[in-house]
């Protein structure tokens, strides 16, 4: 029964949600929204679980003085610091505004989080340049096609090309609108069919990975 009941719940819920999609009735939509509410509630609990897991892993790392344990202290300080700065507790320290308007919260977000995120993302420019230099080699026909396509896409931004620029722009638009779009659509359809197949396997109880080791 320990195995049969979850399988039955998944089968009934899965079939219901699949059928519900094709029934445009108010009661059907009501049940759908009810289920969606539960999805959000589970999502919120998952966030709490994530924080608990993060704190547990960080504390373990600090206690055992594992490699780079100092970073865990910074990470924990960041998490709890932002919670404190954004909460009403700050009123006890003379803060006039709390939440997103809190002076400390706003300043940490604007002058620490934003620059850190932007810097990390910006490092991509350096790695892309290095990777392009090392990996973009015309060692086969397909690699040459990829190389030429990439060059055309990059060159479309270039204002130094003069009248040739228009043709490069048209070429880039063609690459994006036809080969790129066709490939992406094919991948998208493939992913969609794969998802349907996996969903069917879960509903029919063939795929039981979600139940843990089985």
């Amino acid at each position, binding site marked *: 029964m320990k195995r049969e009941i979850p399988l039955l719940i998944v089968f009934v819920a899965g079939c219901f949600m699949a059928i519900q999609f094709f029934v445009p009735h108010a009661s059907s*939509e009501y049940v*759908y*929204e009810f289920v*969606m*509410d539960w*999805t*959000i509630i589970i*999502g*919120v609990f998952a*966030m709490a679980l994530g924080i608990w897991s993060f704190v547990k892993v960080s504390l373990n790392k600090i206690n055992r003085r594992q490699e780079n344990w100092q970073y865990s202290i910074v990470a924990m300080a960041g998490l709890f610091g932002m919670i404190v700065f954004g909460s009403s507790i700050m009123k006890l320290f003379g803060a006039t505004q709390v939440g*997103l308007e809190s002076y400390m919260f*706003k300043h940490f*977000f*604007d002058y620490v*989080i*934003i620059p*850190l*995120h*932007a810097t*990390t*993302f*910006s490092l991509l*420019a*350096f790695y*892309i*340049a*290095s990777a*392009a*230099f*090392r990996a*973009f*080699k*015309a*060692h086969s026909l397909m690699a040459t096609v990829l*190389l030429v396509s*990439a*060059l055309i896409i*990059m*060159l479309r*931004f*270039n*204002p*130094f090309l003069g009248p040739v620029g228009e043709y490069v*722009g048209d070429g880039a*638009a063609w690459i*994006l*609108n036809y080969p*790129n*779009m066709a490939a*992406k*659509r094919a991948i*998208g359809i493939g992913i969609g069919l794969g998802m349907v197949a996996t969903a069917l396997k879960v509903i029919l109880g063939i795929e039981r990975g979600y139940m843990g080791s089985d």
Partner: protein
Amino acid sequence: MTNIGLYFSIGIIVIGLLAILRYSLKGKDIDRRIIFLFMFITVASSLLFKMEFPEKPTLIVKKVFNKIENLPEGSRILISFDFDPAMKPEVMPMANAFVRHCMVKKHKLYIMTLWATGQALMLESIEEVLKPEFPDAVYGEDYTSLGFKAGGVGVLNVIITDFRKMYATDEHGTPLDEIPLFAEVTSAKDMDLILPIGGGAPGPKEWILFVGDPGKVPIAPGLAAVVAPLIYPYYPKQAIGLLGGVKGAAEYESELLRNYDQFKDMDTPALSMMGPQTMAHIVIIAFIIIGNITYFRKRRMNDNA
């Protein structure tokens, strides 16, 4: 003075690249730190000496601009700030340009975010663009903000049928029934246009799949460059047009400048960023060419050996 600095920088880059080319013709590898140094000089000098190029909008961007331009006054437009600070430099200019365009056309603006980190960025756009540049705009009548709601795709699946089931109040705690902008709005289907801005999940793709397509609402996403090719398959039916990366944002800014004199002094971060981006692309292209010369040179040397 500015041009002297710029030409000097370009001169250094060109001479450096020629030196590297000469070095690679001998079949020798280039240290990655040299590539990093060139990227740094290129981006820094373009930023320092403010290199800007004129932009001409592509059809895919022009369609978005024309859609907002041709909607009748008072149309309902929803903007979703679904991004984090990492994407901010790339997509925030789009968000601000959309806000400006919607407000100047006197459309009704509904602002929200599906990302926790998007809330502060959404407020930044309201506080630094909407309020100072459109002081006559009244909250609740001309624009409203729903803020952040956890739930991702779940939120979209609910607002496609009813906003009030997901948002009891707006960002400030005012019940939706007390906000004039929501008087005739039940669900996302009542929007005339949705402008989701972002590059992750949930983001523009989810807006198309769970709101735009089933609700028959026109969607025009603003995207980080890395995800723009992924959204192309949805153009032109599910996405009426799209803005891809800094280039898309720059094209949109240039259209605003071309069509509205009142924006001639506005901040144009995307146009400013196109200079460094263009120069960085040229350097990357140069390195790809040098890399291939080295590769073929080495292959020939090995064949001869």
